[in-house]
């Protein structure tokens, strides 16, 4: 056997000379029956590689966008609250007289 050019001829897929073509009729029928039954109920055996590779991508993208946005939103909200508090707590700074019951 020489390699590259003849490799294809040495590894045939068609015909009755492949390494795994020999199977009894009963066994072949059993396999086909089972396959038809399983396919009829829409069973998906396993997700193909290329599909599975992309399955996690939407989650990662979603997290990549959502996480910074959440952090920014939280920081902004926190800043807003603290600035509102500081405005409410120190009205003196703006020259307003403090009402007598402000501490209550």
């Amino acid at each position: 056997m020489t390699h590259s050019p003849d490799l294809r001829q040495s590894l045939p897929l068609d015909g009755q000379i492949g390494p795994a073509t020999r199977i009894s009729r009963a066994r072949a029928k059993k396999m086909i029956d089972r396959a038809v039954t399983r396919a009829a109920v829409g069973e998906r055996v396993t997700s193909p590689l290329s599909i599975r590779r992309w399955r996690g991508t939407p989650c990662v993208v979603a997290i990549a966008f959502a996480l910074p946005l959440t952090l920014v939103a939280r920081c902004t909200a926190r800043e807003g609250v603290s600035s509102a508090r500081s405005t409410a707590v120190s009205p003196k700074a703006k020259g307003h007289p403090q009402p007598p019951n402000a501490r209550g």
Partner: protein
Amino acid sequence: MLLVVPLAVALPSILPRVRAAIDGDETARRELLTEILPRVRNLVRYLVRRDDDTDDITQDALVTVLVDLGGYRGEGKFEAWVDRIVARLTISRIKKRRFQSQRDTPYNSDLMLASPSHAGEEFLYRRQIVRLLDALPLEQRHVLVLHHVLDMTVPEIAAELGVPVETVRSRLRLAKSRLRTSEWGGPDNQESE
């Protein structure tokens, strides 16, 4: 007429028996599976190390072919479409099950049936070649089979396996080199079982 010919060439055509199977004709489906079974089994055996795993994966591959049948648009040969599905599923299953263990390869008696006829000799020769493949690391074996059996290009294999093109080239080179070594390497490669 001049307009009709290019259109007829350009439009993908699906063989009537495949079309019938796609349309859900159960007899057609069974006939189609019977037809592709030897091919599927051969391809699976080229990709896995153990005969025992061949039938399990072949079974799953047949189911996947039937389930995905609606996705065949007739843009290429039906067999080539089936080959891609089978190869993808087999490699995925091997990764999942971690068949990488170096246990001895038990040879299934059903697969080893041999007759004294010429076909029997031919069969034994193919089995010998499979044993040479069994000596390869799985990554190299897969690249070799995808390239030389399914005629996939190096970039196609890289995309399919999710590895860089250079890795595919390197695996291919190593696989060929190993095959060459194992073939002319010595008594280890003779039929000893």
